[in-house]
């Protein structure tokens, strides 16, 4: 907390920063008033168009489910196979751009002005960006992906160690193990975090240093100039709201199905729509409490608790599982990742299209469509960091944690599959039949205290969804309030509830897959948007004090 008075002076300055001189006043397009007893302060037309379009698309998915599923079911693979080169190439550019910023003098620029100090400790900051960025994904893909890539998708043509009759081909084991981990790490390390870092850096720079509102359009000021306050900016913000809300709602719907599967596996709870609706309602209810407790009392506290529990689970699996194998997997997986990074990133002339289109291009489109949400949240909590510190902490450290996570969870699962294939529950749920939600629980079943660790797994999944829902509501509210961070709280409650309601409606009426495919489709235009952002960041940083 900083305080000030007119006689003591204020803790000025935050230091030199290159404020953009614009005639636009934040909130000048906002509609402010009361709806019944509740106040509102929303951007016109971003709020209205976003909310109405979302309702219209939900109706479309419900009214014509077969048509919607068929169209988006075709669209998604078409996009990832036709524009694979664009997604892979762009993601490589984002990584190179981030690495360039670390070594360039531009890395000395501080977000928030030359003298700004960080608002959060490393632990709080890191927990929040991790919980918003990919906490939930690690729970679900930590076991699934390494095993799948080792045995089925065959990245870069590395052959599977499991024969069709289920026997182990000893000669293929070592290479496939290493590639299984490396191919997973590729999807969770430098590239996704570079995507988030670009968006977050652009938003933080143009808001904290240039004085523009904390909303996606501000990052395009160097390109569009004053026109960002018009329709070009409205479209960018509406797209961001759209991708964020549907991304969250569909994830919430699928998450409820996955949590239900976990509860069935652990407690024998029936798998039914009713249970899933109860789960969505509970998750949304906890998220509402978190929303009402604010950024520091809600998201931050939950993120730190969750990271603590996740770390304990990681340590448990590390020491109770095959510890020495995990350590050697960590080194071997990391080494293979470094060695194969260029072949895996190569967008041209690849034969492993199952891996490249089905996984890599899909992931890149997914991370990019989520980047407005995660990037904006990271931006909001990153004031006071230098660009170099920011990139190292957003790019390098989460990457190392992801490598460790994959080595521990994936390495243990791979060890279970290869050491006793007949008894391995992971093999049954991932290789023999494809049940992604159960993969984590199947791996835990092979370790002691499975009944306790599986419950912890379900709790972690639910709380990671709560933090996503909460931070997502915060982000959508800020965008639809024209960049205001202090709009009336009922608006945040509205978005959080709306997101839960959309998830329930889609769960009951069908259409979750269609809308998730549509969210991923927004990844294509956003990839172009992010490339422009890199240029805007470069321009913006050049004029800053270093």
């Amino acid at each position, binding site marked *: 907390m900083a305080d000030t008075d007119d006689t003591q002076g204020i803790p000025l300055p935050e230091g030199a920063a290159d404020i953009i001189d614009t005639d636009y006043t934040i909130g000048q397009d906002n509609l402010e008033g009361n709806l019944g007893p509740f106040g509102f302060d929303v951007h016109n037309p971003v709020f209205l168009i976003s909310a109405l379009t979302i309702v219209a698309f939900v109706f479309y998915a419900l009214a014509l489910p077969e048509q919607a599923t068929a169209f988006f079911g075709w669209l998604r693979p078409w996009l990832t196979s036709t524009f694979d080169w664009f997604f892979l190439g762009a993601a490589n550019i984002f990584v190179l751009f981030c690495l360039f910023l670390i070594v360039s003098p531009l890395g000395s620029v501080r977000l928030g002005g030359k003298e700004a100090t960080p608002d959060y400790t490393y632990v709080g900051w890191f927990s929040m960006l991790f919980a918003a960025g990919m906490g939930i994904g690690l729970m679900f893909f930590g076991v699934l992906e390494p095993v799948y890539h080792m045995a089925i998708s065959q990245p870069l043509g590395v052959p599977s160690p499991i024969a069709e009759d289920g026997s182990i081909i000893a000669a293929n084991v070592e290479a496939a193990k290493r590639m299984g981990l490396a191919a997973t790490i590729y999807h969770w390390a430098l590239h996704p975090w570079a995507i988030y870092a670009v968006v977050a850096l652009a938003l933080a720079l143009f*808001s904290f240093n240039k004085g523009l*509102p904390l909303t996606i359009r501000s990052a395009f000021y160097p390109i569009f100039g004053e026109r960002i306050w018009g329709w070009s900016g409205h479209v960018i913000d509406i797209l961001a709201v759209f991708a964020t809300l549907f991304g969250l709602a569909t994830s919430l719907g699928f998450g409820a199905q996955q949590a239900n599967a976990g509860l069935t596996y652990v407690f024998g709870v029936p798998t039914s729509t009713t249970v899933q609706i109860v789960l969505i309602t509970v998750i949304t209810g906890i998220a509402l409490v978190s929303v009402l407790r604010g950024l520091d009392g809600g998201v931050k506290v939950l993120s730190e608790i969750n990271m603590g529990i996740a770390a304990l689970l990681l340590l448990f699996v590390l020491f109770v599982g095959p510890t020495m194998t995990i350590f050697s997997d960590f080194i071997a997986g990391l080494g293979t990742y470094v060695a194969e990074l260029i072949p895996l990133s190569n967008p041209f002339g690849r034969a492993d299209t199952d891996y490249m289109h089905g996984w890599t291009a899909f992931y890149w489109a997914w991370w990019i469509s989520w980047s407005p949400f995660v990037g904006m949240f990271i931006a909001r909590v990153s004031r006071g960091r230098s660009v170099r510190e920011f990139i190292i902490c957003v790019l390098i450290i989460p990457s190392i944690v992801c490598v460790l996570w994959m080595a521990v969870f994936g390495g243990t699962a791979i060890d279970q599959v290869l050491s006793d294939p007949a008894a391995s529950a992971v093999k049954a749920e991932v290789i023999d039949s494809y049940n992604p939600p159960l993969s984590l629980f199947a791996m835990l079943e092979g370790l002691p205290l499975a009944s306790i660790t599986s419950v912890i797994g379900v709790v972690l999944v639910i709380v990671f969804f709560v933090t996503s829902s909460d931070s997502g509501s915060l982000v959508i509210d800020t965008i639809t309030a024209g960049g205001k961070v202090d709009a009336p709280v009922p608006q945040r409650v509205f978005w959080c509830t709306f997101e839960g309601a959309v998830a329930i409606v889609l769960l009951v009426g069908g259409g979750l897959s269609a809308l998730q495919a549509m969210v991923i489709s927004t990844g294509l235009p956003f990839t172009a948007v992010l490339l422009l952002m890199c240029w805007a960041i470069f321009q913006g940083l050049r004029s800053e004090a270093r």
Partner: protein
Amino acid sequence: MFTKIMVPIDLRHLERLGNALGVAADLAGHYKAEVVYVAVSGREPSDLGHSAEEVAARLAAFGKDQAARHGHAATTHLFVSHDPAVDLDKQLLAAEGDIGADLVVMQSHVPNVADYIWASHGGTLAQHSRVSVMLVRG
């Protein structure tokens, strides 16, 4: 009886603060007390300024204007929060102690049905404050 009167200010809606400002000025004159105008802001750019420092300057100008208009001693404090929309009540309660106020004078709306769900800021302050709180309606 009172030496320091804290008056929470919403710089966006100064026109709605008329009664509370007048009451605070009268009390300050009666008790020869200092009035401390306080506000809560985020660090993100807003319609009130590009940074918290600009908002602080605006608040300081407001304080000077009130002092000149009513003839009482006045200072201002801006409290910076990560999430001002939610943390306002918490910040104001902390502010009382930080500035050593012994009375809070605050504008508050006439209660309506929304207060059953969300207590008003004034209501929350009156409920939890250790010092006297005077809510001015209308």
